[in-house]
């Protein structure tokens, strides 16, 4: 096995035992990253210089033997909507081409403090709006399991780079499924933490009441290790919650005997891909054989979550994206007066999906339509949240498929935005309710594409999610499968 194919917990042991230095590891990872990058295209920016400087620092730390964390010296990818001081951060938009933030996102600061290495900024859907990474202004990221398929989105590059061993793990962000759906499609683990669990300071905002940063990793233990570093209160984000953070790697290893699992009937609609249904049912049986109790439950309002989301998220986006006005950063297209400058700048800087959502949100918030759309969606939001509150009185976690289908081909869903939106039908209600959700591999389709299993937890109970996911993962070998990096 090559060094770069290992997991974080495996390579951390090697680094600590001085079997390899961080500089050697970073060079080996960088060489592999560059070798497969023309095929996969995970990165908008490859940060080799930064990586090698960080690796040299990490080696000093490893040599001193003190202040070593499991991430010290380990190469990671960072989604290109997380601000990195002095390193271009584009949100995959023409609008922010060349933008070099003057500060780091809190999660980036935390990774730096742990001694992690940044190998690059990963590709994504423009401003995180999409489910295939096709709306990036810069490039089309390919699914490592079949290069003619999309990697999912919006954190497509963060998923593909981990799947293709270009980085040991990455950070993504999830507003309606943007960590879990690409994790499922690329056969890796992805966790959207509880809203407020991880600081959003320095995350370029899409929909502020839904966005959350989380880890994308090769296995569950790595996910726990990343959470140990990024979770916790941050005074720079007033929505970050002051709730104690457990040691996730300790919690993860506890038994799941007697764990109550809810299976919501609404997540197994008629006509769903039979391979996904079968893989999910097998995984549920597996959890049962490991000692979990399975209960059928209902989340009656979940069929309305997609409709509510497409009011709430675009409304918040239309407000958040008002800041791109050609004044303080990013693109400027000259105009005769300021309004003309704004309108020309925004027309040239945003791609079609971003414009669509800005207009949708502007419409939903405009005079005369506010009650029918935005207020209505906020009421539906409460009903969806109440469904989860009620379900969690009876069960500890909820298990569903992550996505109704495996990865699809390029261009298959770009003509009709609604078909693309339906990719998130099983992930979106989790963001609306603010609860945590994790996706992990639970099978392969006949054509060799990964299938994801979603586990949903109580607010701030990521520990139980990781425990259930770890127990399942350790009893299977899906997480050990590697993609072909070929076109099929």
């Amino acid at each position: 096995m090559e060094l770069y194919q290992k997991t974080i917990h495996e390579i951390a042991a090697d680094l600590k035992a001085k079997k390899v230095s961080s500089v050697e590891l970073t060079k080996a990872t960088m060489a592999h990253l560059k070798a497969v990058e023309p095929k996969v295209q995970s990165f908008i920016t490859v940060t080799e210089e930064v990586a090698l400087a960080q690796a040299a620092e990490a080696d000093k730390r490893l040599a001193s033997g003190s202040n070593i964390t499991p991430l010290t010296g380990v190469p990671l990818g960072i989604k290109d909507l997380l601000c990195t001081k002095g390193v271009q951060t584009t949100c995959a938009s023409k609008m922010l081409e060349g933008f070099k933030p003057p500060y780091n996102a809190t999660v980036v600061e935390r990774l730096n403090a742990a001694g992690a290495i940044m190998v690059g900024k990963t590709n994504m859907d423009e401003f995180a709006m999409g489910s295939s990474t096709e709306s990036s202004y810069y490039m089309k990221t390919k699914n490592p399991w079949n290069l003619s398929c999309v990697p999912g989105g919006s954190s497509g590059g963060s998923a593909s780079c981990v799947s293709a061993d270009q980085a040991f793990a990455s950070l993504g962000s999830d507003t309606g499924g943007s960590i879990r759906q690409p994790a499922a499609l690329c056969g890796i683990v992805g966790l959207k933490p509880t809203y407020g669990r991880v600081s959003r300071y320095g995350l370029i905002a899409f929909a502020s009441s839904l966005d959350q940063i989380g880890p994308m990793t090769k296995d569950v233990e790595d996910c726990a290790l990343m959470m140990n570093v990024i979770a916790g209160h941050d005074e720079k984000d007033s929505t970050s919650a002051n709730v104690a953070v457990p040691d996730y790697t300790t919690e993860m290893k506890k038994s799941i005997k007697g764990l109550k699992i809810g299976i919501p009937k609404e997540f197994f609609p008629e006509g769903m891909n039979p391979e996904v249904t079968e893989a999910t049912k097998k995984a549920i049986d597996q959890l049962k054989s490991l000692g979990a109790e399975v209960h059928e439950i209902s989340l009656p309002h979940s069929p309305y979550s997609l409709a509510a989301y497409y009011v709430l998220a675009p409304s918040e986006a239309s407000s958040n994206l008002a800041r791109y006005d050609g004044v303080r950063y990013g693109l400027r297209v000259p105009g005769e007066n300021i309004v003309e400058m704004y309108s020309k700048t925004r027309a040239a800087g945003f791609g079609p999906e971003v414009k669509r959502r800005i207009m949708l949100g502007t419409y939903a918030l405009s005079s005369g339509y506010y009650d029918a759309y935005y207020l209505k969606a906020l009421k539906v939001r409460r009903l969806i949240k109440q469904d989860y509150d009620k379900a969690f009185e009876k069960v500890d976690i909820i298990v569903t498929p992550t996505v109704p289908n495996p990865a699809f081909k390029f261009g298959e869903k770009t003509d009709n935005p609604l078909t693309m939106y339906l990719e998130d039908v099983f992930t979106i209600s989790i963001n609306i309710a603010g609860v945590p959700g994790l996706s992990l591999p639970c099978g392969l389709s006949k054509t060799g594409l990964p299938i994801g299993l979603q586990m949903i937890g109580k607010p701030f109970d990521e520990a139980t999610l990781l425990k259930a996911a770890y127990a399942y993962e350790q009893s299977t070998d899906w997480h050990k499968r590697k993609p072909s990096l070929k076109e099929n």
Partner: protein
Amino acid sequence: MALSEKDVQYVAKLARLEVTEQEVAKYTQQLGNILGYIEEMGKLDTSNVEPLTHPLDMKNVFREDVVVPSLTQTEVLSNGPEVQSGHFKVPKIM
């Protein structure tokens, strides 16, 4: 509620987005479809439901009123498309 091309032009103006005729035609159709889907929510009776703006039970967060280091003027201006004498420069407003 059917969406007209006039609505789309109005919304684009509110959103400060210059749109071409072709875009207006395309967005009218696409946004109309999406709104049709969104109107599914109308089937739910929400007359006795309070709106929920945020998943967490949030209250105002205060801190002590003490000065802490922040970004310098140079850093803040460093990404400005047009900067002059410590200010962001914009085209005429009036």
